[in-house]
């Protein structure tokens, strides 16, 4: 197993395993309350008592990062799920539907593409107001055309493939050809893409938090932590560095694993 993964794959998996524990049972890793304030011990640099230091309200940064995993990864997962859901619906409809539907959906995809993620997010925030739902919706909508396009071209490729043609030739009915060949061959490769997408989504969400459009405080969501800490970057750099590292490490680990999955699928 190890030899096939390589050390980077192993490190990435270890990283994700840790993340999994932090999401499911954060108290195992850090039993303290991430919201408990203690103004008297604000801005403590990293020390044995507080390995990653404390923030402006005296909250432990490590505890907050651990407890924030669920929120951050959750937003990433939801946004990706939304993006993939939409993408799959559009992709299948466009790839298998009649020509006019394909053309119409093609325009939808183009419009969504023509609005870069943050531009879309700004629009949605102007409409819905800032917050977690807006972030999820914005990232979901912004990533959907990417998934839709990947899926449509795959669906087309698979639908025109020799093996589907052969199955139809043998008299396999269309629906069975879809469930037997088209769906599995288009959806499974999407798992790898989704893994990559979650990492990207987490980064996008944190960018929204930076623009003041993200999750409301005092939630220990990483992007929000990072944004709050950035104000103190020269005074208490650990408030910025560590949540930033958590985001980068998670996204990197997901990317590495995603690429492996993608590589294995091909």
């Amino acid at each position, binding site marked *: 197993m190890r030899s096939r993964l390589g050390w*980077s794959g192993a490190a990435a998996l270890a990283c994700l395993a840790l993340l999994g524990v932090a999401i499911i049972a954060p108290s195992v890793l850090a039993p303290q309350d991430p919201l408990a304030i203690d103004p008297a011990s604000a801005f403590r640099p990293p020390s044995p008592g507080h390995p990653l230091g404390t923030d402006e309200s005296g909250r432990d940064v490590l505890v907050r990062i651990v407890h924030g995993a669920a929120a951050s990864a959750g937003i990433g997962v939801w946004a990706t799920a939304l*993006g993939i859901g939409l993408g799959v619906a559009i992709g299948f409809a466009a790839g298998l539907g009649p020509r006019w539907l394909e053309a119409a959906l093609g*325009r939808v995809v*183009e*419009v969504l*593409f*023509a*609005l*870069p*993620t*943050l*531009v879309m997010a*700004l*629009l949605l*925030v*102007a*409409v*819905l107001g800032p917050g977690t739902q807006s972030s999820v919706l914005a*990232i979901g909508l*912004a*990533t959907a055309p*990417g*998934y839709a*396009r*990947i899926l449509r*071209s795959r669906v*087309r490729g698979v639908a025109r493939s020799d093996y589907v043609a052969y199955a139809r030739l043998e008299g396999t009915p269309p629906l069975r050809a879809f469930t037997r060949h088209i769906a599995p061959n288009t959806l499974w*490769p999407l798992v*790898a*893409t989704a893994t*990559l*997408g979650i*990492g*990207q*989504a987490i*980064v*996008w969400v*944190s*960018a929204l938090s*930076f*623009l003041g459009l993200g999750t409301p405080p005092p939630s220990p969501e990483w*992007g929000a932590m*990072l*944004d709050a800490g*950035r104000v103190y*970057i*020269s005074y208490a*750099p650990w408030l*910025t*560095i560590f949540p*930033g590292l958590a*985001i*980068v490490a998670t*996204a*990197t680990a997901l*990317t*590495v694993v*995603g690429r492996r999955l*993608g590589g294995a699928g091909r």
Partner: protein
Amino acid sequence: MAALRWIAARLARAALVVWIVATVVFFALRATGDPLEAILGGPGSQAGPEAVAAAERAYGLDQPLVVQYAVQLARVATLQLGDSYARRQSVAELIGQQLPSTLLLAVLALGLAWVLAVAGAIVATSARGRAGRVVGAALRGVEVTATVMPQFWLGAVLILVFASTLGALPATSAGSSPAELVLPVVTLAIPIAGFLAQVSRDALLEADRAPFATTARARGAGEPRVLLRHTLPHAALPAIALSGWAFGNLLSGAVVVEVLFARPGLGRLLQEAALARDVPVVIGAVSIVALLYVAVVVLSDAAELLVDPRLRGPRPGAVRMPDVAVGS
């Protein structure tokens, strides 16, 4: 003739996209916010009823929504774009002022990203032996990390190091002098460079292993020539195909970078206008973004056709994208 038809078809599609974008934006914004706020000196204004009525007349807000929509659309079509609610200035003029700054940033960042990506890909493919494997693995790690690097974090760290601590570079960027462009351009370029490097390294490796590279070597071509004349053009192809995506990403990044480095530009204009519900500015800016995006995609398609003769003739689909590029 075929080229003309291709261009006409692309332009028609571009116009359609911009129209849909303008429509969606108009109704989305008008459905949820009251533009009067923006007109009357921002939220919290204590303007009297006469002022409200005067503003409504002045901006045609007393007309039915459909009429307002038609007016707005006519403006987009003629690139008049109307007047900003908040800034009391023509939107076309506002965008005209901000666009060059953003374009300069985007073009420089894209250029730097390309240079970094290609340099990385060359180092990764030409390093040989045990050291080569180590270098390759390290580069791969750097590329993946760069790809997922949040720009605002990267920018903040760069400001901390190069402006606050070393004092070597300005922390803000208002114009186009080289010193003040360094940090924003680097901040904007790095994630894109990471992504492009991953894609072009794969293409470069593939081209390097292709029989035509061996053939070139068998003709006596040295490594620099093989790289320059044979493998690099192949590595550039996916990067060209991705230009549309990269451009979208650059515009997203520009919003962040312009706020961070206090740089004037379209991204910041859009951010402020969206928050202030300045409908004409948002519609104008978003339409311009969409237009630019479509233009870049058309250009990159054309460039691809120019570089890669295999694509000429009938072919399905527009931009081909590797799987990793979801969301820009």
